[in-house]
């Protein structure tokens, strides 16, 4: 049996395609910290101190292997001047698109990361997490330049732009890339260990593999090369099997994969090239029993954990607030029970 490792050692070992002491577990919770603090979501997100405290309490409670600095996915669009709508039972969401006339893209400039109040809150959370934790990866988050336009323009207008206005598409990518790099590097400077590069539009659920190679792939290659730390590309429940080899070429270290794909087949395709993160279904997780949680954890570990290169997580990058503490405890406990290397029970 491998000697007990810290969370950071465990994650680094698996990213090196080695078997650590046990399968690392990332419980990517953005909202459950508010429950720990006994406050509403809008109040929780109003201070970086709250988010840091929530993350530390959650890790204490479940013993998983990361801290997560993100407030909500729409914070970037808020930094760009867009509207964000808060609610009590789910993540804050982007309101109406901030760019209603695509011609505005010609004069669009990225926001100054250092001057944005909402980004400052996430950076403050990161700094506190860095001060108060040891040997635990702190995961920062950016929305990819290729996927951010869904919130900037709306999905429909973005697809129209992508297919019909290549000049404005290229200009938007250039502006977004500058912002993405600056925002990622600010998080790394504040103490983040790695950056989650969320890129759902690149998934084959949204665009064809060839369209990805012509667009999102090139954007990712350019952007990731300028980020001063490791990245994990996440497709937020979108499928990526047909492009997995291309994604590995973008320089990313890990890929967040969909619950709609065959995890064992993905692991076979990824082995030695890129590590996998996933792929528990966060939506059905809301109704799991503890027994189901254990069964799902066992199935994912059996499919992808042998040989390392795998971190167990949900498949979306954000566990719904409706997932109960009981189920989260069951996932964590099952990972500790069934994820210990060597995984002798898998072959049996």
């Amino acid at each position, binding site marked *: 049996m491998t000697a007990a490792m810290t969370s950071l050692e465990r994650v680094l070992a698996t990213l090196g395609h080695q078997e650590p002491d046990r399968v690392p577990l990332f419980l990517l919770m953005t909202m459950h910290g508010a429950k720990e603090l006994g406050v509403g979501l809008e109040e929780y997100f109003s201070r970086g101190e709250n988010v840091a405290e929530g993350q530390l309490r959650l890790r204490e409670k479940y013993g998983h292997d990361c801290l997560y600095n993100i407030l909500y996915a729409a914070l970037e669009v808020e930094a760009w001047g867009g509207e964000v709508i808060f609610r009590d039972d789910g*993540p804050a*969401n982007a309101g109406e698109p901030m760019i209603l006339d695509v011609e505005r893209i010609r004069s669009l400039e990225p926001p100054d990361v250092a001057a944005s109040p909402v980004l400052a809150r996430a950076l403050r959370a990161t700094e506190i997490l860095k001060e108060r934790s040891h040997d635990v990866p702190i995961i920062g988050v950016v929305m990819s330049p290729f996927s951010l336009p869904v919130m900037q323009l709306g999905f*429909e207008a973005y*697809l129209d732009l992508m*297919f019909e206005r290549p000049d404005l598409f290229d200009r938007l990518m250039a502006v977004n890339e500058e912002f993405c790099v600056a925002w990622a590097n600010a998080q790394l400077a504040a103490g983040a260990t790695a950056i989650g590069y969320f890129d759902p539009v690149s998934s084959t659920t949204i*665009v*064809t593999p060839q369209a990805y190679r012509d667009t999102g792939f090139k954007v990712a290659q350019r952007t990731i090369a300028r980020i001063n730390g490791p990245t994990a590309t996440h497709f937020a*429940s979108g499928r990526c099997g047909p492009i997995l080899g291309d994604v590995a070429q973008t320089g990313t270290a890990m890929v967040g994969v969909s619950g709609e794909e065959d995890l064992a087949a993905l692991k076979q395709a990824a082995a030695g090239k890129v590590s996998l993160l996933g792929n528990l*279904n966060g*939506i059905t997780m809301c109704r799991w029993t503890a027994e189901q949680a254990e069964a799902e954890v066992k199935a994912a570990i059996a499919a992808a954990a042998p040989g390392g290169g795998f971190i167990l997580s949900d498949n979306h990058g954000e566990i719904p607030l409706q997932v109960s503490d009981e189920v989260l405890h069951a996932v964590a406990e099952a990972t500790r029970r069934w994820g210990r290397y060597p995984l002798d029970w898998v072959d049996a």
Partner: protein
Amino acid sequence: MDRVGARETLMAAAESADVLGASEQVVTPALEHIGDDWERGSVSLAQLYMAGRIAEQTVMEVLSQDGSGEGEAPQIAIAVLEDQHALGKRLVLSALRSSGHAVTDYGLGVTVPRLVQRCQEDKPRVLLISTLMLPAALHVRDVVDQLALSAPRPVVLVGGAPFRLDPELWREVGADAVGRNSAEAIELVDRFTGGAR
């Protein structure tokens, strides 16, 4: 994507039937085929969107020249519940209109009280609800419960990411059926309206 080819195909089919009949023979099967391919992962959402948009534009353009398609249609309404993301609704709306269904669009970011109010005013026979986030999907239960207070309530059909990721969620929220894609939406609407256009 071949807009000209799509128009020529529809026009050719319309020579032996009216435009709506031709649309049913040509456009609906094509969209169903593309929807099935998306389900299998061989077609992207972007292609599905473009196909739906071209189909809707083509049918509407030919219909406006033909003058057919007018008449009393069963009332069908569609809304995005509590979200500004329109793509799912757009796909379904395009597919339904391309297949000859008249649909009232209640728009984006519709709240539960507003949706219930619109349905009580308009009394649609079928209500399609598109959602993106789980909390909105769970609020379909509130819509169904409140609509049930003023019978007959419309048939409630749901779609969107939460319902795709959890195949049982539609039952939990009290919907009458779930459509995994725009082709399934056409099938469901036809089933609940008896195929009337």
